[in-house]
């Protein structure tokens, strides 16, 4: 009995070592060769924690990405459907857009297909940001015109104020990292988006839902790694930058730091450098 027990503990030991070895191998193979992408992102795209958690001394930066859709009803358009994620793209990503397996019920009681994991392309300092600024400027202009027609309206006055803040946030604070494409093959995407300083290829999940009879809509549910650990060496530096606390609560202040992020051969990121923006 004792021998059998020792054998089981021995197997446990081997298991612990093998699993740890596999993780190290995975990390090493991700970071060993030349990174797949190296991009500089700012505080606009890498959000530090709002407050320091007393029970967690670690630090991570949240990757803020977004999608562009001029018709989206969402103010911050991560949750909207990107223009490029149309019926054809969803079909190419493996979704059954024709609903061949659909239920005999009406479309609304049909469940949405489950999210699929794919590769998405994130574009840093995207030109799409300029389009979103123009959109906000047009909205502000519209509100101002309406206020000019009804100068006594307090509601319109507040609306103009709110639009001005939104525009300021869009110009200075919001992320300029846009999801611009998706595919099942990372290498094919890299061929298409060859600039490794501008385009990140990473894993994400995409969800499709039926919006009506034969109509479908796709959204990016999650980027699978959207939280970047800050190692101790950079943590102290980042804390000293963040300690200056130049930001107000409006989110329209310019970013305080920029960070160099590398994405490895397995499309997993790590922090390479942090610099203060003066």
């Amino acid at each position, binding site marked *: 009995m004792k021998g059998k027990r020792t054998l*089981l503990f021995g197997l446990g030991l081997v298991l612990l070592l093998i699993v740890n070895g596999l993780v190290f191998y995975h990390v090493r193979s991700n970071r060993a060769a030349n990174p797949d992408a190296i991009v500089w992102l700012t505080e606009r795209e890498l959000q530090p924690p709002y407050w320091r958690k007393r029970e967690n001394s670690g630090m991570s930066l949240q990757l803020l990405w977004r999608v562009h859709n001029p018709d989206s009803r969402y103010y911050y358009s991560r949750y909207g459907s990107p223009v490029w994620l149309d019926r054809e793209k969803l079909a190419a990503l493996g979704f059954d857009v024709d609903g061949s397996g659909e239920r005999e019920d009406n479309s609304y009681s049909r469940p949405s297909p489950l999210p699929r994991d794919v590769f998405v392309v994130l574009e840093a300092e995207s030109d799409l940001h300029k389009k979103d600024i123009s959109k906000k400027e047009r909205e502000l202009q519209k509100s101002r015109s309406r206020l000019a027609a009804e100068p006594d309206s307090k509601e319109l006055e507040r609306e103009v104020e709110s639009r001005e803040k939104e525009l300021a946030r869009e110009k200075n604070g919001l992320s300029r990292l846009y999801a611009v494409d998706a595919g099942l093959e990372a290498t094919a995407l890299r061929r298409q988006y060859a600039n490794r300083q501008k385009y990140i290829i990473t894993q994400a999940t995409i969800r499709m839902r039926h919006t009506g009879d034969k109509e479908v809509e796709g959204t990016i549910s999650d980027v699978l790694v959207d939280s970047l650990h800050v190692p101790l060496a950079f943590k102290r530096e980042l804390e000293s930058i963040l300690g200056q606390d130049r930001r107000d609560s409006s989110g329209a202040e310019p970013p305080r730091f920029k960070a160099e992020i590398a994405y490895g051969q397995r499309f997993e990121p790590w922090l390479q450098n942090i610099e203060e923006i003066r």
Partner: protein
Amino acid sequence: MSEAISKSDAQKRADRIRQFNQELQHLQHDGVLRLSTEQRQAVSAYHEDLLRKFAEVFDIDVGHREKQLSLGMRIASFLGALGFSASLFFLFYRFWGAFPTTIQVVVLLGVPLLLLTVTWYVSRREHTGYFSKILALLTLAAFVLNLVMYGQMFNLVPTQNAFLAWSALAFLLAYATGARLLVAAGIIALAGFLSAQMGTWSGCYWLHFGERPENFFAAAAVIFLLGTWTQRSYQDFLVIYRIFGLLLFFVPLLILANWGRVSYLPYSSQAVEVLYQTVGFLFSAAAIFVGMRTGWRDVVNCGNVFFVILLYTKFFDWWWEWMPKYLFFLIIGLTALLFLLVFQRLRRAAGRPDGATTRITERASAEGAK
């Protein structure tokens, strides 16, 4: 004394010896049985010797009071294990940010290795197993922390394979220390892995496997089958496999029987619900039948519970809206009476020598005789 006997078997035997002695006293008092002094001494010496050996090897509870104290110790051991595991998590989270990556890795790998070694050492020296079980659970907690933290530190894409690794260690530690809690942990992790794997085979990202209850069926079958294998020294574990296997089958089935729209099947929600309700009734009845044939009380009880739940949810669907409430509850009461009558008949059948249900008693006796 057989080497293969488990602590639980030894405890059952000790309980029966105590009951036998009590009954023997009554029989002697009523003059039904008279043992000669030699016979009494022989039985007594045999039992004392047996109990002494059991106490030496397994540290079982020989008396009623010891048994009560043991229950208290088991509860304390369980709470201790949970407390230490939570403490380990929070301790690491509280201070890990102050260390460079190398130190973090050394701690994350070193702690489970150290705890595993200590668990092995302690398990060789104590008979009760209380401390080694606490340490074993703590080892598993350290291994969970190990992989979770690697995921955070190295920004890794989450994978269901972690569940397989946790499940493997949980099972190894469970069989090494006899900890039932770890068997349950191993089963849950294995079910998570298998169900996630089913989800990925159907094309979805693994973290969403829970959105289609059918993903759990394969895991349920595997885990139930593990509970039907003979594991000589681990009879206690079999019940846990069977109960978890049945829960993993019947709970998703209950969901599908009421919300057919979450099914993979390409039929209308109503058709899916009717299908799973039928399957539910058939399988719960089959569980009762199989449980009675094989003497697995746990399977009989699970079958009973889910048969009743399925029946009452159907009653609710059919009658709650239009039926006066007094009538609805009257039907519930009458159904309960019907069940009572059925069980009474089964119980009587169990009393007959050729009754199928006698197998439950026979099996219990057979297990005890080891």
